[in-house]
Each structure stands twice: as structure tokens, then as C-alpha cells.
């Protein structure tokens, strides 16, 4: 019994250490060049922007604010970093998240829906 409990703590601690092992860097620096260069197939398409707005309201607004100004201590998206990011960089962030800093991965969303969200974000600048 004691061995098993010790094993639990060892494994939990190991997992936490592994999770903390990644270097804390600005996410932008981690985007590979080929990802950076990707372009949004739905740029400026009205229906994609509307769909992206719906997706943003459903999944993102609670943390980033319906007005993109941030909420509950989470960052707003009307920043120079987001404004200056390429479509590919934002797409990379949505796929990978920034787990160390609380941004979840949205890889479970189909790619077209992630591009729709980016079309909405770019239209809201």
C-alpha cells in the first residue's frame, strides 16, 4: 500500500516536472518559419468573419473579453503582438496553445474553424 502511494506521488511529481521542463519563451519565438508564412484562406470573407465571430464568442470571449480587451486577468487581444502577428503565427498559437501560461491548445477544432477565428480577429483590429 505504502509502495503504491509512493508510486503515485513519484509519477505525479515526474509529470509535473516534465510539464515544467520546457523553456519559458515568448510563443512568437517558437513559431517555425514555414508556419509563420501560412496565409488564411478566408481572409476578408464576410461569412468566415461572421462564423469566426460566433466561434470567438463561444470559446474565447470568456477569457479574452467580448470586446477583445481581456477578462478575469487574462490578456486582451488588442495588443501590438497580436496586431503584428501573421495569420500563420496566430494559427500556430491556436493549434499549440501556450500551456505554460494558461492558453489551451485548440487543435480539437477543425483547421477551417481556426482560420475563421483568425479572420474575425484580423477584421477586428
Amino acid at each position, binding site marked *: 500500500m505504502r509502495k*503504491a502511494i509512493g508510486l503515485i506521488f513519484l509519477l505525479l511529481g515526474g509529470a509535473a516536472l516534465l510539464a515544467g521542463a520546457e523553456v519559458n519563451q515568448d510563443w512568437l519565438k517558437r513559431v517555425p518559419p514555414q508556419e509563420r508564412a501560412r496565409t488564411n484562406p478566408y481572409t476578408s470573407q464576410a*461569412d468566415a468573419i461572421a462564423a469566426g465571430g460566433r466561434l470567438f*464568442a463561444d470559446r474565447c470571449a470568456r477569457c479574452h473579453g467580448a470586446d477583445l480587451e481581456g477578462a478575469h486577468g487574462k490578456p486582451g487581444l488588442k495588443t501590438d503582438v497580436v496586431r503584428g502577428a501573421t495569420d500563420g503565427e496566430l494559427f500556430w498559437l491556436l493549434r*499549440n496553445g501556450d500551456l505554460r501560461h494558461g492558453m489551451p491548445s485548440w487543435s480539437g477544432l477543425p*483547421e477551417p474553424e481556426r482560420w475563421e477565428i483568425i479572420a474575425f480577429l484580423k477584421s477586428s483590429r
Partner: protein
Amino acid sequence: MEGVGTATRRLSRVWPGVALIALGFLAGSQRCEAQEPPYFVTYSHAMEEPGNLEIEFKGTQAAPKNDNAFGGGTVEFEYGAKAWWTTEVYLSGQTTANDSTIFTGFRWENRFRPLLQEHWINPVLYFEYENTSADRSFLEIVGNDGVDDLLLRNGQARPDVERELEMKLILSSNAKGWNFSENFITEKNLQTSEPYEFGYAVAASRPLSFRAGARECAFCRENFAAGAEMYGGLGTTDSFGLRATSHYVAPTVGWNIPRGPTIQFSPSFGLNDNSLAVLWRVGVQYEFQQFFSRFRRGGR
């Protein structure tokens, strides 16, 4: 031996209360959607978003041949502690026709994503402590679990409380809109010198549409996901393999209702004599975004 009707009547006495509590929670909350595939047994690498609380009810119902029909219910409270750490508590009960309705115990589960970026295959480490007896939730199948376990009456099975540690290696990939997940399971009884038990679960699913529409609608294809899972036992350290194990294959479908809960449904079909012929599953889940911030000053 009789059954489905009696079990259903018993369940119908309990579930309205559960539904009322759930409605109370839902009142005043806003639309929220998880991105989890519609699986009942298999885990993907989708974690709960940090700060979100998901409450889910999972029901099972089956009418074993030559035995009493039963229904099981599990309420899950899943919380995103970090973007890479999800913790979850389960409370389970069951009702068996011509027998009784009992609380069967609790589980506490933790899932960790050791790699902080998305990869071709994404591992998740899973640890769970179980304290259950006469459990019929079928949340996993391990070792030599099978229909024979269901023969005991609740009064006989309940004193045998199982305190177990369950560990899973979850491997999962998202590609071209599909999710593919594989789980390798091991379970150990912490009280006795029983051997380690092993099991597996594999699944694939996809949303029916990869694009969201400009307008919200309840029955749009984007709100539905479909897939299939297969799961079963792999024996123990003493007798590893497929001998005297049970296995199921299950088509599964999920419906994400706009401004409402996600509803999942799945019939599991037994693949050998040691399995139930059909195990019906239904799930209802609702996610509260940034749950604890609602109680802070300025929170909604």
C-alpha cells in the same frame, strides 16, 4: 430476471431530481462548448480549458441475458487546473431490477500533458484513485472483467470495496479534422496482492462539418460529431492476453446544442460471450467557463 421496465421505472424516480439540480446550475449561465470528441471510454489529449468546470452525467443501461437489468449513473466534475493538468471527481450509483439502488463510490482522476506543444502523437499521463463497490458504470474494462461480475446481488457485492489505482497512457492525434486516440490501461488493487490488470481503448471521430456557419442553428452539421470506439480487457500479469476477457465496439455520436449542453449517445455491442450483448450509454455535459471567477468581485 425481469427487467428493463423495472429498472427504467427506478431510474425515472432518480433522474428527475438530478435533472432539476442540473437545470438549476444551467440557469443564468452562458453558452460554452468543449472540444472533446464524443467518446465514453476512450480519452483523447483534449484537456479541460484552465478555469473551466465541466459537469457531466453518464448513464449506462443493459439487460444481461439470464440476469436482472441494471442502470448505472455517474456524475463527473471536471476542472481545468492548468492548461496541461485536468482534475476530475466522479460519483457513481446504480440501480438493479429486483434488487436495489445504491451509491457505488467515487473516483479522483488527474491527467497531465507532459509535452507542451502539439505533436503528431500527443501523450497524456493519467492517474486515478478509485473507491468503489458493485460498480456498473463501465467507465473502463480491464483484466478479466465480464458478465460473470454482474451475477452478484448488490447486497453481496457492496461490502467488497475496491480501492484501486488506475493508470493510463493516452496517445492521441488530431489530423485533417479527425481525432485518433489510443489508451493503454493498467489497474492495481491497493489492498490485496491481486495482480495488475490491463485493458485498452481505441477510438476515432470527426465533426460532421469542418466549417462553422455564419448563423447559429441547432441542427447544423457543425454541431454534430460521430465516431467509434473499441475497448476491452487484456488479462492480468498472471494471465496476459485475450482469454476470458470482454470486448466492445461502439459507434458514438455527440450533439453540441447551441447555448446548451452537449448530448452523447452510444450503443456498445459485445464482441464475445463474456461481454454484454448491448450496453446503452447516454451522456449529458455542460461546461462553465471560468467557473471560480464568477464568485470573485466583478465576476459574472
